[in-house]
């Protein structure tokens, strides 16, 4: 096959030279790679697990059973007029996506260190791809939410149309975390040990098992800084018709934006030396 005649421009590799291409453009151009990375993870995960999808549901179900007993029955926490199991399940499903995607994303570069040192693929594709397989789990879990809604006769309204919106915010929040943690993990393996406990504490600092309306005053402010506050409240508003989250949502969205821009900037700066330090 003959080569094209027009001479392409020089591509430079020098110390301190950062990638100039905008992140979204890099992501768009590596969409095929992202898809294949995600497909690889999905196939490998389900290839030899006979019960497959069942495992995806087991985790949120177990947590919801515990929450129902502890928070719903014993502590009798308000669930904004929604049957407690349904209230907690939706929170847990949203949380499980965030937690799984963040943990997977934080490990993705280190787990592919062979690739990082031998191939020059767009590094950002790796954490981006890690966001996709847990989406499949999310969709499967939403079926469970729907079943429970039928059982408790909670009917959705037009607000259900906002579902793609909160899913996008959810994915962006997890992606922001994954950018930070995956790049930090390349340099400090401590990250991978810290992520587990961090997510456990974070779970209880988010309105999964209780509504954020329990907090007031400056607590509420602080609480709204948690990006998951806004996302979970928005999801409940959209699916279960709970009250509109109000200004805390704006604060949460601001945190997501900060997490994402900061994460992108840090990742961009750190990726130049991934192959040397990994």
């Amino acid at each position: 096959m003959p080569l094209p005649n027009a001479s392409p421009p020089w591509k430079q590799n020098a110390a301190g030279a950062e990638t100039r291409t905008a992140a979204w453009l890099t992501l768009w151009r590596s969409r095929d790679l992202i898809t294949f990375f995600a497909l690889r993870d999905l196939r490998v995960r389900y290839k030899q697990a006979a019960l497959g999808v069942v495992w995806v549901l087991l985790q949120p179900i177990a947590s919801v059973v515990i929450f129902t007993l502890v928070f719903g029955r014993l502590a009798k926490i308000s669930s904004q007029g929604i049957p407690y199991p349904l209230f907690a399940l939706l929170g847990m499903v949203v949380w499980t996506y965030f937690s799984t995607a963040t943990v997977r994303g934080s490990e993705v570069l280190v787990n592919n260190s062979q690739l990082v040192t031998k191939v020059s693929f767009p590094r950002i594709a790796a954490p981006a791809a890690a966001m996709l397989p847990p989406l499949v789990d999310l969709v499967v879990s939403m079926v469970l939410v729907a079943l429970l809604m039928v059982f408790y006769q909670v009917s959705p309204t037009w607000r259900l149309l906002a579902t793609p919106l909160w899913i996008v915010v959810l994915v962006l929040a997890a992606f922001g975390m994954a950018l930070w943690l995956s790049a930090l993990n390349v340099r400090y393996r401590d990250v991978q040990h810290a992520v587990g406990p961090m997510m456990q504490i974070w779970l209880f600092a988010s309105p999964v098992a209780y509504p954020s309306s329990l907090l007031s005053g400056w607590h509420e402010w602080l609480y709204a800084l948690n990006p998951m506050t806004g996302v979970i409240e928005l999801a409940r508003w959209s699916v279960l018709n709970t009250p509109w989250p109000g200004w805390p949502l704006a604060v949460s969205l601001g945190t997501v934006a900060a997490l994402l821009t900061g994460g992108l900037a840090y990742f961009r700066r750190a990726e130049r030396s991934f192959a040397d330090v990994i």
Partner: protein
Amino acid sequence: MDVVQFDRVSKRYVLGQRLNAREALTAAAAAVFRPRRELGRELWSLRDVGFSVAEGEALGIVGRNGAGKSTILKILAGITAPTTGVSRTRGRVAALLEVGTGFHPELSGRENVYLNGAILGMSRRDITSRFDEIVDFSGVERFLDTPVKRYSSGMYLRLAFAVAAHLEPDVLVVDEILAVGDAEFQRKCIGRMQEAEQEGRTLVFVSHDLETLTKICPRSLWLEAGEIREAGATATIVRDYVVSGLLPTADGTAPLQSERVTVHAMRVVPEIEQASDALLRGDRLRIEVDFEVTEETPGLDLALVLTTAAGVRVFDELLSDTTLMRLPVGNYRAKLVVPPLLNVGDYTAGIWFGTQYEDFIDQPVVASFTVQGSVSYRSERLLVLSLPLVVQPLDAAS
């Protein structure tokens, strides 16, 4: 027109700097009080290396292990950044530093072709349009839907190379990949690289296989300790490189070392001790290697390699070809007596240590020597076998 320019590139690695967060904090705190304290030992993998490659040219790179060859390739490919200096490339660069990186054992051959193609920078459409070619080249069409973990290592390598071979880049960068795989695989690889060259692609090729290098690349660099020692026509470079292999490691030069084996010395001497150490045509030679096994290694094997100054391998003799011998931890001397076969000329002896699965030391150029003798010997032949040539008259009458 140049498509690759390396402009005074240096690359520094800091050794032993595997910090965890606590050490990093301590170091940062210490730096406040004692600024500019070095954290680890530095290693300059490249120092002020400059060269350029014109469009359609094939450049070879030779050098001993650790000379910085792979670092050049990694910088060219954009995997790592130089510490100072600039590397410029024009067009799409495809680097093949290792065969099969990114293959997943659980996925089928077909799935791996797509995954690997995408990792190497092909779009789904590119891969689909070249899929048949790739499968054809690899010769594994019957097993396309089998997970690659069930492949033989030969099939695995062929499929992996096939994907990389169909990238159709402007600049193809290839590291020592021919060290793996059987003769047929190597022939295919070399053939494919020659094809790429004929198609006008630019090629940068690192190899210990000097014969192949000479075949593919008209021009070469010789890299030593991170610097260019010589650049020019490959035939000249290879010759100088091989002759420089005069490294009597007993003379205080760093020993060849791996985690499991250390080579202390290598000598080539006349088999019968003489007043002078000159090696004469017609004498038997003895190649001796003193080595130490420092870690118990099942299946440890060694080979002595003899190469001409032009890079043609004369023979390699593997221990396990003739005997079964375990090599527990300890010191050894290996001896190989070579019958008087070699013609007058320059040669090098080298050594390989490894197991069936892994190379520990692979240094075809350790000690070089000259076989001396009467100039009346016809120099164009490599071996003087003195085989009896039988001539019989063919009597038309009988």
